[in-house]
């Protein structure tokens, strides 16, 4: 755990917002900075626990790996998959210019 009390900077908030593709107003940036500060200060308590020799748990389901056979099954009406598209053209999803 990061030592001591974390303080998130506005720069960090903006960096994370870029990663998450969220446009934030200045008010939102400020608000999120203090909210994240509060949450991260709260989760600091996890640092009290010695987890050196503890294995992480990422799932609590049952063991076993179900698999499907390699058969083609995509039965849907043509165009059905594009019906919700905000913009489409010739069967494609249409988007503004993609910048590399």
């Amino acid at each position: 755990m990061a030592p001591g009390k974390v303080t998130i900077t506005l720069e960090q908030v903006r960096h994370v917002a870029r990663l998450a593709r969220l446009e934030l107003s200045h008010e939102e940036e400020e608000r999120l900075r203090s909210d994240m500060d509060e949450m991260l200060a709260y989760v600091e308590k996890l640092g009290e626990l010695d987890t050196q020799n503890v294995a992480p748990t990422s799932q609590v389901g049952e063991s076993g790996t179900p698999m499907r056979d390699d058969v083609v099954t995509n039965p849907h009406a043509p165009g059905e998959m594009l019906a919700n598209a905000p913009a489409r053209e010739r069967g494609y999803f249409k988007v503004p210019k993609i910048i590399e």
Partner: protein
Amino acid sequence: MASELNRLTIAGARDQLRRREISALELTRACLDRIAAVDRKLHAFLMVCERDAIAQAEAADRRLKAPDAPALCGIPLGIKDIYATRGVVTTCASKILENFVPPFDATVIAKLRGEGAVFVGKTNMDEFAMGSSTENSAFGPTMNPHDLGRVAGGSSGGSAAAVAADECLAALGTDTGGSIREPASFCGVVGIKPTYSRVSRYGVVAYASSLDQVGPFAKTVRDAAIMMRTLAGADPSDSTCSARAVPDYERALSGDVKGMRIGVPREYFIEGMEPAVENAVRAALKHYQSLGASLVDISLPHTGYAVAAYYLIATAEASANLARYDGIRYGLRVNAEDHIALYEMTRARGFGAEVKRRIMLGTFALSAGYYDAYYLKAMKVRTLIRQDFERAFETCDAIVTPVAPTTAFKLGEKMTDPLAMYLSDIFTISVNLAGLPGLALPCGYDGAGLPIGMQIIGPPFSEEAILRAGDAYERSNAVAKRTAEL
């Protein structure tokens, strides 16, 4: 008379339907009438599917002419708007999905359709199931039927309120950190969060995939058992869904808890919890003793760390699960010069404050340099919490706790304080982290007449045992159940 049919339980309606004393159409109309009469006050429903419901009811009546119609044939249900329903708008209470019409059914929806159930509408919820009060709905909160100035709980508040107000006989919710049990408790109804993997998640809009579970709200434990039999079971579309056979949960309701060892965790009776809540749960424990169960003092030492671990794990998973809402294939789009601006503006406009808050926290917890300190640490603490329960179940068969430290709080009371809101799930979150089944049922009322709920937690796949325990309590009339008069 007909207008009272909506007050029936599933078990009661099932028998009358089979005996053709009532029709599914009458029953459905009664529920639709009730919705028309009271939902303006409650806002339990985001959408009422009147035409579809009538058609489903008529189809059910045709089917009920045959002797062996399924248990849920003709039963009017409320569906949390988190379930993909083919051809019916599914918003997850978010602006970003305001007009999304799924071309497919969630697995449990398909199962219910198969049994001839009737869907009266899609119920309100916290946006993307992120909340404990349904105040985070992009379309306005749901009011508590027992006090319209108070929250119904969340995130499945609409379903809880709809059942409590007799707008439907039962409803579907989802539970990631308490989202079935807490609103069930606040609204005075029964709700069960099954063992993780017991019920398919396919078609259930994901919040935190390793924690989300599907479950029912009902007026009685028996009705919850009837619902569970249909909901549970393997699904070839969900690799995390258990292949175990599904028992007849209703048959397990023997009313007998003699010899049952009930664990009472000291960490669940804490400072700051309302005396009325503690008293009601303690009284329920005494009642269990009178029924022949024994109480065992147990400890779940890592309880105090559950909320912290939960908010790192759940938000991390959510940050990826919600990345798909980008305005390209479906949902809201805010047009822009280039694709990146389109993403950022669409998501800024489409997501509410709490969703943004959790996406930000989760993205941070996974980002370079912080993964080990936050996300990985939380996954390790999750292991410790699981082990707490494994150890506890060596000395007891089930654990009884309060569902929440308080009864329903006032609308707006916690909206400005996220952490306070998160802490209202303090007694339910560990159960999701450990993947255990948890049943919430009414065990009394506070001075203001607000319902109090108790939680019965069992080992993995012990749904029969905890339902039996809940039913035994309920049928011995420990508390006189008050219906919400609106």
